[in-house]
Structure formats: structure tokens, C-alpha cells
């Protein structure tokens, strides 16, 4: 294992310290428990948005804390969900009196830890809602699996909900918006190489020089299929078709019901993309793939969308939700409406994204 690190056990902390030092005007780092929060939190009257998850996906999530996006991010150990005390303490610190939305990726660990945090926060009288993101079409059904994982759509939801919070939306409105973003987003990824968890020291899986792993998540876990390396146009075609041909997807997710004061099962359905849809197209590097290659992916993706009568009205290309140094990419397509476009374009100022603002 060759990495720019000191001791593996210090990786997460030192990386966060560097980020906090570099962006002290935007974010602060809390220790024991660990979380990153907006330098000017709490913002009275504003709904606060908190996300979190394992580390190793940088810049997600800490890189998205700041004006117009997240109020706090709770980083776990590498590829390991953070713990409820982090989420609870973050909620206490950033609560501006209008409640908190937890945006949670649908992994068993994340779901369970955020559920516990929601229960704890509710117990302490903090108004928390909890929306799951499950957009990874590589996971086919939810009956025989944990259900689809939360990947690329997560940060799009964070941006859009962050802008809504800034614009004065209330908590139920933001939760509804977040759910709508999730129901309009689909993602799928591939890996050319594995990554190495610092504490582990050896690559999580082995691929030969002629193999790729299709349908991977973001934790270095193997994907749904191992196949031969192909020209990127073919790979892009496989990924894009998987997104475009994905039929209506129904599943049951747990959400907190405020009126009942308990968890309820909510039946939700993603509708397939259709001709004429306006899309945000997001080509993401898994960490070790250079932007030059991402643009080749985008080139083909744009061609396919055009052929299919889909209109890419916004795009995002870069390493934003990564798996350490893994080579590979993921594609996320998000169907947009006027409101989502307005919120996407709204000003943002975080360590990673900064637009519409000085």
C-alpha cells in the first residue's frame, strides 16, 4: 500500500484537519464526536441539513458543508457509517430552531445509525426527519437485497435541499423535495481497479489487467459482474442503458412519521426516464480516474441522451463521490424540473463547490 498518509488510524482525522485548516472561513471541525459544521452555525430560523457516511468518499460530505448546502457532515471511519452520537451532537449544534433533515444513503449501517440518531434527537426534543437516498440501479430488486444503495444522487440532493433551506423552505417541504430528488435520480458505476482501505493495507479485490468490475458501490465492494475491459464508449453505453432502461422501481423505505411519532413504511416508486425529460448528467470519478477520461465518458453519454430525445440541461463532471484511489467512474442521471434547476443554480460556497457567490 502506497498512500500519502501517516498512520492509517490517523487518516480520517488528519484529512479533516487539513480540510478545516484550508477552509476555516467556511467550516469548523468538532472532535469527540467528530463532525464538520458550517462556521456560522446555527443559522436561526433555517432548516439545517446534515449528511454523513463513511470516509474515503471525499470531497463528499465534508467538502459540501457551507452556505447553500450542508450545515454539518458526520464522517465515519473509512467506508464505515458514522455513529449516532456524531449525528446527534451535530444536530444539537446546527439546529436553528426549524428542524433538521438527515440525508442518508441506503446502506444498512448508515440507515441503522441514522435511525438511532433520529430516535435520540427526537427524544431530546429536536425536530428531525430522515430521508433515504437509494439510486444505484446495479442493485436490481429490494426483495432479495438490502435495496438499492445511495450513490451519486446523494450530493445532488444535498445541493438542492441546501439551496431550499437557504431559501426558507420548511422541514416537511425540504423532506418532500429530497424524496422527489431521490425518486428522479439513477446511478451506476464501474471500477478499473480496487482501492485499499488504509487500515487494511491490501486491495479489497483483485482485478487483472484485462478486467473491470461492473455495478460497484462506493466502498470498494465487488460489483454485480466482472467483465473484460472494453472501449469506454461501450462501457458508457452499458452504464447509460442501465439507467435509461431501468423500469419503474418500487420499494418500501422507512421514514419518521411526525404525527404518529414513530417509524412508518413508505411505498415509493421511481418512474423511468422518458423522451423530453430534462436531465442533470453527472459523470463522477471514483478517485483515481483523471478528468480527461471522464470527459470521454461524458462525450458518449451526451450522444446517447441526444439520440434518445433526452435533454441534458446541467452537468457535473469530476471526482465528487469517490472510493479512495479507485480508478473507475459512475454516471448519475437526475430528471430536473424548474424548481430543481433553480435550486441547483442557486449560490453555493463550500470547500468543493463555489458558484454564484464571491
Amino acid at each position, binding site marked *: 500500500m502506497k498512500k500519502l498518509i501517516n498512520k492509517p488510524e490517523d487518516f480520517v482525522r488528519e484529512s479533516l484537519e487539513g480540510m478545516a485548516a484550508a477552509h476555516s472561513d467556511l467550516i469548523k471541525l468538532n472532535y469527540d*464526536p467528530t463532525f464538520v459544521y458550517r462556521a456560522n452555525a446555527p443559522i436561526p430560523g433555517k432548516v439545517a441539513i446534515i449528511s454523513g457516511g*463513511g470516509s474515503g468518499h471525499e470531497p463528499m460530505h465534508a467538502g459540501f458543508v457551507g452556505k447553500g448546502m450542508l450545515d454539518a457532515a458526520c464522517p*465515519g*471511519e*473509512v*467506508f*464505515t*457509517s*458514522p*455513529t*449516532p*452520537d*456524531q449525528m446527534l451532537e451535530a444536530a444539537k449544534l446546527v439546529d436553528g430552531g426549524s428542524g433538521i433533515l438527515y440525508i442518508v444513503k441506503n*446502506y*444498512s*449501517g448508515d440507515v*441503522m*445509525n441514522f*435511525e*438511532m440518531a433520529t430516535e435520540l434527537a427526537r427524544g431530546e426534543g429536536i425536530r428531525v426527519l430522515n430521508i433515504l437516498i437509494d439510486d444505484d440501479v*446495479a*442493485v*436490481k430488486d429490494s426483495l*432479495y*437485497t*438490502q435495496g438499492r*444503495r445511495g450513490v451519486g444522487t446523494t450530493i445532488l440532493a444535498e445541493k438542492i435541499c441546501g439551496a431550499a433551506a437557504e431559501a426558507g423552505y420548511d422541514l416537511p417541504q425540504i423532506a418532500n423535495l429530497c424524496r422527489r430528488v431521490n425518486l428522479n435520480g439513477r446511478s451506476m458505476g464501474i471500477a478499473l481497479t480496487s482501492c485499499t*482501505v488504509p*487500515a*487494511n493495507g491490501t486491495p*479489497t*479485490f483483485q482485478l487483472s489487467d484485462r478486467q473491470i468490475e461492473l455495478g460497484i*458501490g462506493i*466502498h*470498494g*465492494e*465487488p*460489483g*454485480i459482474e466482472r467483465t473484460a475491459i472494453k472501449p469506454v464508449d461501450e462501457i458508457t453505453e452499458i452504464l447509460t442503458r442501465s439507467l435509461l432502461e431501468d423500469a419503474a422501481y418500487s420499494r418500501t423505505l422507512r421514514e419518521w412519521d411526525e404525527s404518529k411519532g414513530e417509524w412508518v413504511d413508505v411505498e415509493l416508486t421511481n418512474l423511468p426516464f422518458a423522451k423530453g425529460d430534462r436531465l442533470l448528467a453527472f459523470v463522477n470519478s471514483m478517485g483515481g480516474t483523471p478528468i480527461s477520461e471522464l470527459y470521454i465518458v461524458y462525450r458518449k453519454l451526451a450522444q446517447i441522451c441526444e439520440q434518445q430525445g433526452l435533454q441534458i440541461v446541467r452537468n457535473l463532471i469530476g471526482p465528487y463521490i469517490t472510493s479512495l484511489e479507485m480508478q473507475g467512474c459512475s454516471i448519475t442521471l437526475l430528471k430536473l424540473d424548474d424548481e430543481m434547476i433553480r435550486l441547483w443554480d442557486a449560490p453555493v460556497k463550500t470547500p468543493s463547490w463555489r458558484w454564484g457567490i464571491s
Partner: protein
Amino acid sequence: MLTQAHILQWLQAYATEIEQNKAYLTELDAAIGDADHGINMDRGFKKVSAQLPTLTDKDISSILKAVSMTLISSIGGASGPLYGTWFLRASTAVVGKQELTAQDVLGILQTGLDGVLQRGKAQLGDKTMVDVLSPAVTAFGQAVEESKGTVEAMQQAVVAAQMGLQETIPMQAKKGRASYLGERSIGHPDPGGTSAYLMLKSLLEVLET
């Protein structure tokens, strides 16, 4: 009779077991998950081990509860809330008790399992720690019904746990990360099931010495 001292010894023994199996558990998780289960468990139980000296004068329920809080706030991942819930619920089963009868131990095992089921929503056969914890409870319950003592009941529970763990090998995972692998999850033991088996085995070993 299972004493407070047994509980403390067991927690220490299990922490040591986890430390020794850290790489192995992680390797199992690399095959069908994300290569961190041993690291996660070891992080949590190192904390527990460090905490034990502060618990020597606590009662059993308080010890289990304190351990659960440590696990919840230090393991993370899927196993953090699950083991955390197991210990938290277990602590509620033995409130005020200074020594545990076989019936009490059954209460711990059963309530712990219930907590895991409620939190994780897994069913038998989903290739999770439930496939180890559940047959162990059944076997222990059976032994208690047959009026066996704690040690013997625990022996049967560990045998059942081991068989349950074996049976996770041919299973296709339906919960947790391994479920994303579909059929590729077949042929490997479940990491969380393995750590759960070690937990029961550690308890038995403490009782037998």
C-alpha cells in the same frame, strides 16, 4: 450461576478474540463486503477493554448497558448499531440481577436477538449474524427447558451457533452489503455471523474455566 466477574472476564476474552481475529474477519468481509468488519469490531472492543476497569463495581445490567453505549459510539457501520442494540437490550433483561441463572442468560440471548431483529429487519436465511444468534437462542432455550445448567446450555448454544455459521456459507445474502453481490455472495461465511459465533464461544470458554 453466571456472576458479574464472569461477565467482565467474558468481555475481556471476547475483546482479545476479536483482536486476534481482526484480520480474519476483515478478510471475510473483503470477500463479500467492504473489508472492514474486523477493523470495526476491534475498534469497538478495544474501547470496551479499556473501559472494563471502570466497570468492576457495576452490576451486570449496568455493565452491559455501558458496553452497548461504547459499541454504539465507536463501531459504526452495520455491526455497531447491531451489537450495540444487542448489548443494550440484553441489559434490560437482567436489571437488578447480581447473578444470572440459565433462565436469565436465555433472557439476555433472546432479548439481544430481538433487538437485532428489530433494528436490522433481517430474517433467518438472510446470511447475517441472525443466522448464528438465532439457532443459538433456540438451542439454549431447549436446553433450559430440559433443565440443563448454564454451562451445558451454553455448550449446545455454541454448537448450534457454529452450525448456523456453517450454514451461512451456501446462503445468498439478502441483507447488508453482501446482498449487493447476489449469487457471488454464495460460498463465503458471513463476517458478522463469525464475530457473533466468537462472542458466544468466548462466553462459553469463560464459563468452562
